[in-house]
């Protein structure tokens, strides 16, 4: 039995705002201290995770709003590329 998938910060990648980017709230992150501008994170949800870059963090009346730039492809494609190039074992 595998370890359950835990995304860094959940979001709906289709839930955009006027920026055209998906967004979510910082306080939904499993470890908010990891959600820094420019960081690569796993987002979406455990059923359909995706990689994203944290585009910005903005103070809003309702909390800190995190905009995410969804990275192309499936997370497994990145893992496969890293395996091919021995990045995981170097």
């Amino acid at each position, binding site marked *: 039995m595998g370890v359950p998938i835990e995304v860094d910060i959940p979001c709906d990648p289709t839930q955009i705002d006027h920026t055209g980017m998906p967004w979510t709230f910082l306080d939904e992150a499993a470890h908010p201290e990891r959600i820094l501008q420019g960081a690569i994170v796993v987002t979406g949800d455990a059923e*359909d995770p995706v990689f994203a870059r944290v585009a910005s963090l903005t103070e809003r009346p309702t909390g800190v709003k995190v905009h995410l730039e969804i990275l192309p492809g499936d997370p*497994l494609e990145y893992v496969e590329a890293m395996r091919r190039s021995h990045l995981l074992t170097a």
Partner: protein
Amino acid sequence: MVGEPIEGYLRDEEPPDDAVVVVRGGPIAPAKVVEHAQRQAREYTYRNVPMYSISVSLTVGRWDVSALLAGPLSSRSAFAVSTAGAVRAAGFALLPTYDAPHYDLLLATGEYREAEALLRLFGSPEPNPYKRRGR
């Protein structure tokens, strides 16, 4: 009320009932509808009350289903479809928000039972053929 009014982000657009397909990206599950609607209501208001809604994509303008799946929904592994007429007939409004083909599908409460009722209007989830898989 601290949420931002959505009214400033509406397009002037009224999709016809029958010609337009409403596509929701996966996971297609009531719990996800609730989670996403509550997040939206925390940030936005519509008509001065919290706006419980989920994002959907519609086949408006140059957008057909394939273009939606390869574009705004390309990160989603699965999708489900309904029609604008079906969701409106069941009492769910469609707000044209931000840039096409994005819409907000409004819920009254954002609660689980309402999410279940909404998803009954959609067909079975199908895999998104435009999402690439690494192997």
